[in-house]
């Protein structure tokens, strides 16, 4: 056959209905998977970028040993297309005339910030401005509290070490202000090139050098690969994912996207499978004809392989043609929501799962039945023998299972996800087999009698093979869609619970013990109640079981908490959101022991009973670990790695107190009075961080809704495709029933009932399987607790019943509108 002839035969195929269904399924499959993959990919990037403002960059490299980060490293990064900036952070005295104040200085280069913005006022009482740079050389910006404390104004000069700098503005907020309760001397921002002239930094000073990097994810990763072998233990490479408050939310969002994508893959596989299977089975007559015409089995096999390949290509091209504009549209929506430009970029790698899904399911489901047909004698193909079962159908099932499993694995590479989804599907099919068996037993004796209900049940029994496979597909579709719905709602609920309205958004730190009451009184007067107050002692963990920590923990493991001073506290009751995972919380009157945060305990390999030595100022205390507890770092409340019992060794040491509270935006002016009245108390404003997180959660929520909508649309299409697989048979039956004297209303009612019952059944099964899958996912992937979701369990079977009943009604339409005579002519 010449190529043009082959193409001609493909064009002829197009007129066959089954072929149209296969091609539409392919187009839908490729389009859905591609759209979701592209969108998820894009979203991940935009989310990370929008979260990156917390670092003022995409990545930070910190050196905590007081040595600058080599310029060559930044040069290397720039040669790889990354943008860089550098920062120096240190504490020093700032003076103005006779006045001295300990401040925490951040000196930044011209490019700072690479991500996010600086909030600035050109005068103490001026308007807030948004800038994308720090102070120029010779200038300095001061925190408003410090300005008030020292009674300074813009235009005044201050001394940092030996350098005199002019105050050119008020620093309201830096993007990478972070959420660090340590070292809360008031912030001063100056230019990095001025640092040397201050003469403050000497050999051995406590100073942190930081390099900032921003650019394409791939370039960043490549750069890190280059950088990694050059790093020393005191170097720390940080991405936004390491940030405590946001990382959980981001990770969950990413996992949701992954889940959505996997579900799209499965749905697509189901759609293509149903359609191509239908096509293959419908080819019996053609294969028989070809055999009687004397075509060899090999040629028949090759012919179908060729056809399937062509359709695969056509379907993929069609799918991409649909996917790209939809993706562009979604992209523009995202840009609108984010109020910034989102580059339209199609990552070719993200398209691979879509194409693989289409091709693999096409061949895995269409080819095996055809391949088996070509070995069967023509006569047997045409007239199947009574009682002849498809003995080799199980190999098809194995091929199909392997294909689907492989596809989801290819996409997600997450064991839990694959197992949960495939396990849910398997449980569903097993239950369905049971139901099918029960149906045969229960419905065998039902007979018609002009009653729509009985006719519907008779129909279900008569069409049990088709009905069961349709119910199976509907149930699978519904399971996948409900899984996504369930995970979505619990995800959203989690997020809402994590940062509810009125989450504490201000911290008061450094409250001297004797002013605690006064501070409380100040806020009570203004109608603001403070959350729990915690004492805070700063100290380092120096010994584990009598050995220096540095020896116990190998140098490669960079344990963050060891590099810094830790916040130690004592408390009576376990905070509500903490949970003991090992050991026991302090008894009443217990004064010994320490409770350690679980992640740190794991990093250090600590167990209950280990003795920890802390150095606090010149004192050391040693306590046994009595419990290990988890902490909700993302809760934005004061959290502590180490908690001691009240009345213990810690209580004798000098402590300051910390508390948090919620202050609405319109009350913020009270802070000015507060800082004037309590100049030594540090106020940490995290309202913008919380707002930012809430905004990101909102964005992710919208994205999740969009993906859910896509998946639901795809499920509807799959269901319609499945119903249309038996369209011809159903219409033939309807036409015949009408000529035999069936009233239209009876036909309509019994068909709708039959489909409705199938729909409810599929809905029940699907939701039950979804609950099972969600149980596994929730437990292993999203770390929440499982509960039944009645609000989903109840409506979905009803909705699916109604949808199917309507689909049933819809497919009868051509049978109802014309005279039986015309129907008969069409049947001939």
């Amino acid at each position, binding site marked *: 056959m010449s190529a043009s002839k082959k193409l001609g035969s493909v064009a002829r195929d197009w007129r066959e209905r089954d072929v149209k269904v296969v091609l539409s399924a392919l187009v839908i499959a490729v389009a859905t998977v591609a759209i979701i993959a592209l969108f998820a990919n894009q979203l991940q990037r935009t989310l990370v970028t929008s979260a990156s403002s917390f670092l003022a960059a995409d990545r930070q490299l910190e050196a905590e040993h007081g040595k600058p980060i080599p310029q060559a490293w930044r040069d290397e990064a720039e040669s790889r297309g990354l943008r860089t900036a550098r920062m120096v952070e240190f504490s020093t005295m700032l003076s103005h005339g006779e006045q001295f104040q300990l401040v925490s200085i951040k000196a930044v280069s011209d490019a700072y910030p690479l991500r996010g913005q600086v909030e600035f006022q050109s005068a103490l009482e001026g308007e807030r401005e948004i800038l994308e740079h720090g102070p120029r050389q010779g200038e300095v910006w001061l925190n408003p509290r410090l300005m008030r404390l020292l009674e300074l104004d813009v235009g005044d000069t201050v001394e940092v070490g030996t350098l005199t700098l002019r105050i050119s503005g008020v620093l309201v907020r830096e993007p990478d202000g972070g959420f660090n309760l340590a070292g809360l001397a008031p912030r001063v921002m100056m230019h990095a090139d001025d640092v040397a002239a201050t003469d403050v930094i000497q050999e051995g000073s406590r100073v942190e050098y930081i390099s900032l990097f921003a650019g394409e994810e791939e370039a960043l990763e490549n750069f890190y690969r280059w950088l990694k072998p050059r790093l020393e233990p005191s170097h720390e490479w940080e991405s936004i994912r390491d940030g405590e408050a946001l990382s959980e939310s981001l990770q969950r969002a990413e996992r949701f996207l992954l889940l959505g994508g996997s579900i799209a893959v499965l749905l697509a596989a189901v759609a293509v499978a149903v359609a191509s299977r239908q096509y293959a089975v419908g080819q019996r007559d053609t294969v028989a004809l070809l055999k009687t015409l004397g075509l060899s089995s090999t040629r028949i096999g090759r012919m179908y392989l060729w056809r399937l390949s062509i359709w695969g290509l056509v379907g993929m091209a069609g799918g991409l043609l649909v996917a790209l504009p939809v993706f562009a549209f979604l992209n523009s929506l995202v840009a609108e929501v984010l109020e910034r430009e989102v580059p339209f970029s199609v990552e070719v790698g993200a398209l691979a799962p879509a194409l693989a899904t289409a091709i693999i399911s096409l061949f895995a489901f269409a080819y095996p039945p055809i391949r088996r047909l070509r070995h069967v004698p023509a006569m047997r193909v045409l*007239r*199947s*023998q*009574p009682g002849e079962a498809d003995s080799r159908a199980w190999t098809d099932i194995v091929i199909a299972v392997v294909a689907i499993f492989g596809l989801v694995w290819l996409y997600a590479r997450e064991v839990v996800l694959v197992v949960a989804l495939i396990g849910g599907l398997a449980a569903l099919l097993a239950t369905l087999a049971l139901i099918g068996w029960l149906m045969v037993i229960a419905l065998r004796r039902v*007979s*018609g*009698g*002009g009653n729509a209900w*009985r*006719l519907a049940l*008779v129909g279900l029994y*008569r*069409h049990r*093979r*088709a009905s069961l496979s349709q119910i199976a597909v509907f149930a699978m579709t519904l399971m996948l869609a409900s899984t996504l719905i369930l995970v979505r709602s619990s995800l959203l609920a989690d997020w809402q619970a994590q940062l509810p309205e009125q989450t504490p958004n201000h911290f008061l730190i450094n409250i001297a013990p004797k002013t605690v009451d006064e501070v409380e009184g100040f806020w009570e007067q203004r109608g603001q109640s403070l959350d729990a107050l915690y004492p805070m002692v700063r100290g380092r963990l120096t010994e584990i079981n009598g050995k220096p920590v540095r020896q116990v923990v190998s140098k490669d493991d960079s344990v963050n908490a060891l590099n810094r001073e830790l916040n130690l506290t004592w408390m009576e009751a376990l905070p509500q959101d903490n949970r003991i995972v090992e050991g026991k919380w302090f008894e009443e009157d217990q004064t010994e022991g320490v409770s350690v945060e679980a992640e740190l305990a794991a990093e250090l390999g600590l167990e209950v009973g280990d003795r920890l030595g802390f150095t606090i100022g010149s004192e050391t205390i040693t306590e046994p670990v009595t419990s290990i507890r988890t902490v909700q770092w993302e809760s934005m409340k004061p959290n502590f790695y180490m908690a001691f019992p009240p009345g213990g060794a810690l209580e004798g040491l000098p402590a300051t107190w910390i508390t948090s509270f919620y202050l609405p935006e319109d009350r913020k002016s009270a802070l000015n009075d507060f800082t004037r009245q309590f100049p030594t108390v540090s106020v940490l404003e995290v309202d913008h961080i919380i707002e930012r997180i809430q905004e990101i959660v909102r964005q992710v929520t919208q994205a999740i809704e969009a993906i859910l909508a896509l998946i639901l649309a795809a499920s509807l299409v799959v269901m319609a495709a499945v119903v249309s697989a038996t369209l011809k*048979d159903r219409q*033939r*039956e309807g036409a*015949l*029933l*009408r*000529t*035999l*004297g*069936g*009233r*239209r*209303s*009876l036909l309509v009612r019994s068909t709708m009932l039959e489909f409705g019952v199938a729909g409810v059944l599929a809905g029940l099964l699907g939701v039950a399987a979804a609950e099972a899958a969600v149980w596994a996912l929730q437990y292993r992937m999203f770390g929440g607790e499982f509960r039944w979701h009645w609000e989903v369990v109840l409506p979905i079977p009803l909705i699916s019943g109604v949808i199917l009943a309507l689909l049933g009604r819809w497919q009868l339409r051509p049978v109802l509108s014309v*005279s*039986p*005579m*015309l129907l*008969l*002519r069409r*049947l*001939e």
Partner: protein
Amino acid sequence: MTDPASGPENVSEPILKVSNLTQRVNLGNDTLTILQGVSLEIKRGESVAIVGRSGSGKTTLLGLLAGLDTPSDGEVMLEGNPVSRLSEDERAALRARRVGFVFQSFQLLPSLTALENVMLPLELGDYPDAGRRAKELLERVGLGDRLRHTPRQLSGGEQQRVAIARAFASEPVILFADEPTGNLDNQTGQEIQDLLMALNQEQGTTLVMVTHDETLAARCERRLTLESGRLGKEQEAAA
């Protein structure tokens, strides 16, 4: 032959009375006249053959007689009911109770077994024991051992037997057959003919049959010829 039990109507009253039946179809701007002024009467229990060239309008006529379609003009009275003036659902009810069909291409539902195919018309009406009656009929047409087979597993002749069993299942007073042997070989056609005539005799059904088959036409009591949509001269045939 008449069956007094089949209805309260006067025996001499024709079961089917057709006057001036005309059927036209619109094809774009052209109007095609398929049937032109056909008038005829068929008596209860009669067997009538309709013959004519292919395309002469036989199937169209049969469909109108059976109330499967409405004529452009003229009237069909079936057992005193003005078929052409009944609503679609009234005609359906009439078909369900009084009319049986046999088609050239059998028209069995491929997904149902032989038994289920025969049960189909019984289920539409309110027959108390559809299963048993269907089984009896299949035994009568010689397929008692093929009840659970699907059409795909049956030969053409066997399929037509199932169709005949289905046609007689609801005990119709009148049976319409459109070239019932048209898709079968001579030998099988002969057997189907015999079966059809025999059942017709047994049940006292009125039979209206379109056929190309001269021997089959000859076995009917009357023979109507259609020529380009008009009824030709009528011949009496020997039964």
